[in-house]
Every structure is written in structure tokens, then in C-alpha cells.
């Protein structure tokens, strides 16, 4: 009985399929293809290199540093942001004055453009008059170089990104909390469990599926970090905040090494894909039935 709808079906999906095939799928396949070539755009020439780009990549100190920074960034920011968000969400379950206003304030960085927000933080990290050093001086602590130090710049970017992602994660946790049936808490209270014990043995375990979602979602985004690094440091000083996407952006659009940049993009894709696959294997284990 559906047969007469075939025509409709294909007509209705064809715009999306054609646009996706052209602008998403084809470039993705081409990225894989380019990764084994030297691509010269202006001369329209492809030179086969085999695994040459990949070998170069792993011998290049700049790329290795960028890869390491990206992984450090992702592995630090995700648990910090998720843990803070979980604690905040639990606090937000209480009733207090101006609750909706505070929720809105925590969420506001989420709706702000990353580059605009990063410009403000760039000013706050100014070593002479920036707000961070003003606070340190008020506390009679020595001012820090922040973005100008190759030891501190990545941490400074991580602090920015925690601020930027915290509200979103908190709101997702709040939704997760609302899904936990009240009877679990009632039972725990009857058993005389303290608030801390209730958090450890009821809330945190029952939030596990939400935590898996937040960790994976944030991890995938963290691996693609670009905007804030571009504005705050441009990858410096001394490459200490370079990340994979910024590195491939430099290689492709400033040095026109499209093949090499494609190899870097391919590696990033493989990393993101493994995180996604890990999610599917892992989230089953954490499924909770009420």
C-alpha cells in the first residue's frame, strides 16, 4: 500500500540527500583520498605519496605537540566541567530566591559566540591590567603571565572553556535529575541516609547515563576546539596551545598543504570515531531501568 508513495518519498528526501552527498559526504571521502597525496590546488596536480603525509606528520614536532595539547585539553576539561556541572545541578534542585535568574546566568555563556567571549577573556588575562591579575594583586599574590607563558596558556584556555561549557552541562544534568523517581530519595531518607550519602549512592549512579552523554558530547567538541584558541593565543606561545584543528587550518589555508592537512584531519576523524564507538559500547553498560 505504500508503493504509490515511493515517488513522494524520494522527492521529499532528495534535496537533503543531494546537498549532503555533495557538501558533506563527498568532501569527507575526498579528505581520506587527499590524505595520501600531495595536493597542488593552483596547478591542479595530485602526486601520490602513499603514507608519506602520515609519516611526516608523526615526525613533525609541531603536529605532535598539537595532538598532545588537544588530548590534554579534552581529558582535563571534560571531567572538570562535568563534575562541576553535576554538583551545581544537584544544588539547583533546592528551592531558593531568584533561582531562574541564576540558572539563566550560568547558561548565558552557552548562547554567546565563542570568539566574542574569548575577546573579553583575552582582556581579563592581560598581564598588566587584566582582571585575573587584579584579583591576585588584591590578594597580595604575584601576578601571572597567563596567555604569555607557555606553561600557563593551555590552562588559561581550559579555564575559559569550563566557563563556556558549564551552563550547558548543568542544564542537561538538571534534566537528568528530573528523570530520577522521587521514591529512591524517599527510600534513602527512610533509611536515614545523609545528603552526602544520598548523592553518592542514589544521585550519582542514577545519573550515569546522563554523565556518559555529557562526557562523550563534550569530548567530541573538545577534540575540535578552535575558536577560543584562535582568539586567545593563536596557538602560541611556542606552540604550547596549538591544537589539531588550528594546526590543520594553518597547514591548509596558510601554507596550502592540502594533502598534509587532510592527513591531519583524517587522524582527527579516527580519534572522534573511536570516541563515538566507545560511547556505543559503554552506554549500554550504564543503562538504568526504573
Amino acid at each position, binding site marked *: 500500500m505504500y508503493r504509490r508513495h515511493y515517488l513522494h518519498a524520494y522527492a521529499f528526501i532528495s534535496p537533503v*540527500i543531494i546537498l549532503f552527498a555533495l557538501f558533506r559526504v563527498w568532501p569527507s571521502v575526498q579528505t581520506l583520498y587527499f590524505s595520501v597525496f600531495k595536493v597542488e590546488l593552483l596547478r591542479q596536480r595530485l602526486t601520490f605519496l602513499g603514507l608519506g603525509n602520515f609519516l611526516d606528520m608523526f615526525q613533525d614536532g609541531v603536529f605532535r605537540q598539537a595532538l598532545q595539547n588537544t588530548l590534554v585539553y579534552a581529558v582535563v576539561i571534560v571531567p572538570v566541567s562535568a563534575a562541576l556541572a553535576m554538583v551545581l545541578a544537584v544544588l539547583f534542585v533546592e528551592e531558593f530566591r531568584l533561582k531562574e535568574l541564576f540558572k*539563566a*546566568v550560568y547558561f548565558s555563556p552557552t548562547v554567546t559566540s565563542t570568539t566574542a567571549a574569548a*575577546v573579553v577573556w583575552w582582556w581579563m588575562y592581560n598581564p598588566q591590567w587584566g582582571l585575573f591579575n587584579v584579583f591576585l594583586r588584591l590578594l597580595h599574590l604575584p601576578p601571572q603571565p597567563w596567555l604569555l607563558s607557555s606553561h600557563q596558556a593551555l590552562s588559561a584556555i581550559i579555564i575559559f572553556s569550563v566557563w563556556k561549557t558549564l551552563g550547558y552541562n548543568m542544564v542537561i544534568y538538571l*534534566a537528568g535529575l528530573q528523570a530520577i523517581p522521587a521514591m529512591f530519595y524517599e527510600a534513602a531518607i527512610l533509611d536515614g541516609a545523609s545528603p552526602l550519602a544520598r548523592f553518592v549512592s542514589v544521585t550519582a549512579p542514577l545519573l550515569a547515563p546522563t554523565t556518559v552523554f555529557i562526557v562523550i558530547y563534550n569530548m567530541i567538541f573538545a577534540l575540535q576546539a578552535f575558536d577560543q584558541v584562535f582568539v586567545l593565543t593563536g596557538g602560541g606561545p611556542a606552540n604550547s596551545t596549538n591544537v589539531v584543528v588550528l594546526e590543520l587550518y594553518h597547514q591548509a589555508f596558510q601554507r596550502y598543504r592540502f594533502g598534509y592537512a587532510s592527513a591531519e584531519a583524517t587522524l582527527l576523524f579516527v580519534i*572522534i570515531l573511536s570516541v563515538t564507538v566507545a560511547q556505543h559500547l559503554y552506554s549500554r553498560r550504564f543503562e538504568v531501568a526504573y
Partner: protein
Amino acid sequence: MIRRSLVYAVIAAGGIVMALPFYWMLVTAVSPAPDIISFPPRWFPSRVIVDHFQAAWARAPWILYYKNSLVVAIISVGLSMLFGLFAGYAFAVYRFPLRTPLFLLILGTLMVPVQVSSVALYVLLSRIGWVDSYAGILAPNFASAFGVFLIRQSISAVPTDLIEAARIDGAGEIRIVLAVVAPLIKPALATIALLLFLSSWNDFLWPEIIINSERLRTLPVGIALFKDPYGNIDYGPLMAAGVIATAPMLLAYAVSQRFMIRGVTLTGLK
């Protein structure tokens, strides 16, 4: 009682930290230059001035950036919603050969972010002459996999009886989509449109790659590149630029924050 005030203290202190960058941006933007670099810091400007706004306004075509951001957002959201509505309907209602593989193909693109495919996409667009054009900025955003997925989910919840009844009344399929199904899932459509608008409005990497000329810069690109030529000296105009770039979105958010937060939550949880 003690517990409640402790909770309140933590939330309030955290809230101040979260809001501080916005507040400091505003204070810097309206403070005279000596205030900006005074120690101890001036939390309130000694007098409110608009000079920094005039300077920021003179140095960059903000109206143009706004126009570009709006044009890109409206076209990409409009087309993504239109195409997404029909594709979502087809995937939810019809059974047809290759339905699942095609749906998975669309979802699969979610796993390959533009960050990864940007190099090859640039090469493709340079061949068809779309570099440095609206079409180039829009190319990866004409349709949204996320949108198709969420619209399909919403339409799956619409009772088939309603669609069958409309068919018996002689309504064509296109009319059913636009006049029967779309009004029924209006709240979901509004949420999805809002999310697509936000992500288009704040998108930076792809416009930055594909745009060369200033006349096509969107706001995120404009503010990021505004920072560079003036270096470390002029924080007043820079923060005024920050206010110009963020205030409308923050105001829209202040008016509709419940709707926005609920929308993001619904879609975040799939």
C-alpha cells in the same frame, strides 16, 4: 535552613563568577581610559562615556557584519527547516527501499564535523567558484542532519490516523506536510529552528576559512579579526565591540531564556 543558605551562597558566588566577564566587558566599554587601568579596579565607571563605542563603530562596519550574519542564519535555518520537514516526514511516514541506509547516511555526517572535511570542501568550492561568497558560507549548512533527525522524531509521535484522515479528505502529500503535520509539531519546529539559528549565528571556523573579503564577514569573524590590528593598547573600543557583537543575542536570550534552556535540554537528551 543552614543548608539552604549554604546552597544559596555557593550558587550566588558561582553566578557572580559566571556573569563577571559580561559585567567587566560592559564596564570597560563605558569607562574613561584611566579607569580601565586603575588599581584598585573601578567596579563602577567614574562617569559613563560613549567614546569607545564611537571608536569601535568607526573602525569596523558592524551593521554589515550583522547583515551578513542575519542573511546566512536566515537562509540556512529556513532551508534546513524546509528540507528537514519534508525529509523528516518521508523518513517517519513512508516505507521505501533504502530508507534505513539513507537515514544512516544523513546521521553519519554528524560524525564528520566540518572541522574534518573543511579542507576538501574548500577545494571543491574553489573549483565551482564559491570561495568568498554567501553560497560558500552556506554550502555545508543548506541542510542539517540534526534537524532531519529531530523533525523525524517529532513526526513519528504524530498519530497516523490524522494523516490518513487528511488523505481520505483528498489532501495531497505536500499539503499534509505543510498544513497538517507542521502545525502539530510547531513547538518542536520552533525549538529546532532556534538551535539551528544559534549555531549558525555563532559559527566561526567555516566562515573564517571561506571568506576573504571584509564585506562578507559575519559577526564572530568580525569580532575575532577586530582584535588583532590594534594590539594590546585599546581595550575600551575592543570591549565596546564586544558589547556590539553580543548584546542583541544576550537581550534576546534574556527575554526568552526559559524557552531557550528548555529547547537545548530537550534536544541534548535526544
